[in-house]
């Protein structure tokens, strides 16, 4: 379990509104992989996790809430960070390069999957929102991405929920068949949704793929993480598949850990 914990000084490049949140960019020597995180000291009594939503060689971009102290910092300010920490998305453990990747997200958690948009030659993305107005404009996605839109009220795209079944009103199509099709097509699927949905989503994957390989489906789990190294137990949760600490065992878990037995 013992692992080296990196301590870095990042440089704030900019902080700008990206409604309803803000975006901050930090320059950094060792940039975080998708699904990992950094614990940043913004002056509060505990560090705060920053999850990368864009990554390049020189650093990364993360979202923070409006009014967050980071939004008040001037470009060039040094920020003390621990990390990258945690286990991110695992795309290359099978020994061969991934050809097809499926991403599934609530619109609120969608940015967490952004670093994966070009992680394979063919990437499909299913985004679910409550209603049409919440769905980002298609111009915000790379053209290479195969996009499937789902709304809970059927006001745009397929009728959700993704994990749901049953019939739809005339003229509206249920997401179910499309989701199943993509689940059969893909080599890996990465989720970023409200965790309360993971048990049902796990059941869906299990149903479609029968015997999915470990890590075939991966799910991102958010948590308060004051320590990041597994000592404080604030992020320790009981999943159906066993007790885990989000900070070191996650934040990305095998979706099947959420499968209720």
């Amino acid at each position, binding site marked *: *379990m*013992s*692992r*080296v*914990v990196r*301590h870095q000084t990042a440089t704030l490049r900019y902080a700008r509104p990206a409604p309803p949140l803000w975006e901050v960019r930090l320059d950094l020597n060792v940039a975080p992989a998708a699904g990992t995180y950094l614990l940043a*000291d913004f002056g*509060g*009594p*505990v*560090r705060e996790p920053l999850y990368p939503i864009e990554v390049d060689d020189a650093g990364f971009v993360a979202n923070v809430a409006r009014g967050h102290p980071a939004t008040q910092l001037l470009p060039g300010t040094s920020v003390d960070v621990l990390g990258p920490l945690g286990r991110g998305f695992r795309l290359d453990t099978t020994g061969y390069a991934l050809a097809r990747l499926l991403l599934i997200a609530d619109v609120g958690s969608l940015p967490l999957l952004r670093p994966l948009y070009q992680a394979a030659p063919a990437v499909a993305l299913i985004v679910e929102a409550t209603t049409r107005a919440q769905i980002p404009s298609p111009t915000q996605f790379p053209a290479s991405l195969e996009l499937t839109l789902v709304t809970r009220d059927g006001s745009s795209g397929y009728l959700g929920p993704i994990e749901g079944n049953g019939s739809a009103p005339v003229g509206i199509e249920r997401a179910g068949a499309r989701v199943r099709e993509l689940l059969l097509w893909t080599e890996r699927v990465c989720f970023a949704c409200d965790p309360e949905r993971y048990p049902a989503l796990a059941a869906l994957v299990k149903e479609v793929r029968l015997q999915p390989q470990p890590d075939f489906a991966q799910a991102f789990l958010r948590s*308060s993480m*004051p*320590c*990041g*190294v*597994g*000592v*404080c*137990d*604030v*992020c*320790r*949760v*009981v999943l159906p598949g066993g*007790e885990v600490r989000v900070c070191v065992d996650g934040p990305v878990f095998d979706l099947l850990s959420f499968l209720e037995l």
Partner: protein
Amino acid sequence: MIDIAPNHKYGLSLKGPVMPAAGTFGFGDAYPNLVDLSLLGALVTNPVSLRRRRPARGRRLAVHRDAFVVHTGWPNPGVRTVVRDFREIWAHLPVPVIVHLLATQPGELAQAASRLSGLSNVAGIELGFTTGVSPRLAVDLLDAAREGDLPVIAKVPFERVDQLAPHLARHGVDAVTLMSPPRAVLPLLSTDPQMPIARYLRGRLYGRALFPLLLNALSRWAGKLGCAVIACGGIASPEEALACINLGAAAVQIDALLWRDPWLLNEIARGVGAPQPLTKTEAEAALREEYNGEETL
């Protein structure tokens, strides 16, 4: 060397006065490259119970300005598993290990304590009590813990220092840690505008504001109990550690503030060196309240 258990048959000797507080540093392997353990006086483990404990549910952290509330329910896999997983690591640490045991029921505690006897480099037990423990139960728990052969330190809940510290000292505890964190409550804000405060979180309070409360507890009890006192609560600098030692603390524990700055442990250890507390007379002089005469007329 500082012996914090001089009346115990083995004693409990520390190379220096600085250690992590229970629940803040894990079991010894969490910060391999950020903290040089050899600069510390001891390692205090996370809390351990006889049986496995499960984590609490729901939100478990709430931050309020300079302070924060944590609620975990002290999950741990139980003493047998902890010993199995960490005894080798403990045996090779450059500092003695003090295992923090959650003290609820004397019979269980005696079992847990006996599992720690004879482990290489395990040098003491620190007891954690629930806030509401009665003085009588606290003594029964102390006696149960002493059925093992290790020196026993009692970590006294903030709310109960005046009642339990002298009581446990009279009953022969080897040392007292002042204090385990206060219980506190914070609102958990929700996004529902109709019901902005739908939940509250109750838990342990951490943060620098504990420090003036700790000094108050020390000023009342350190040097008056006939046993060693370890200071714990919001200490965040060598100066603050020295302020505790001056008042008679034999050692200091650094608590959840080290999650933000793990190197604080080493900084404070380097900063305090091998300090000398004030003499009793000096400490009294330093604490003397200055009044301008009492009520007149």
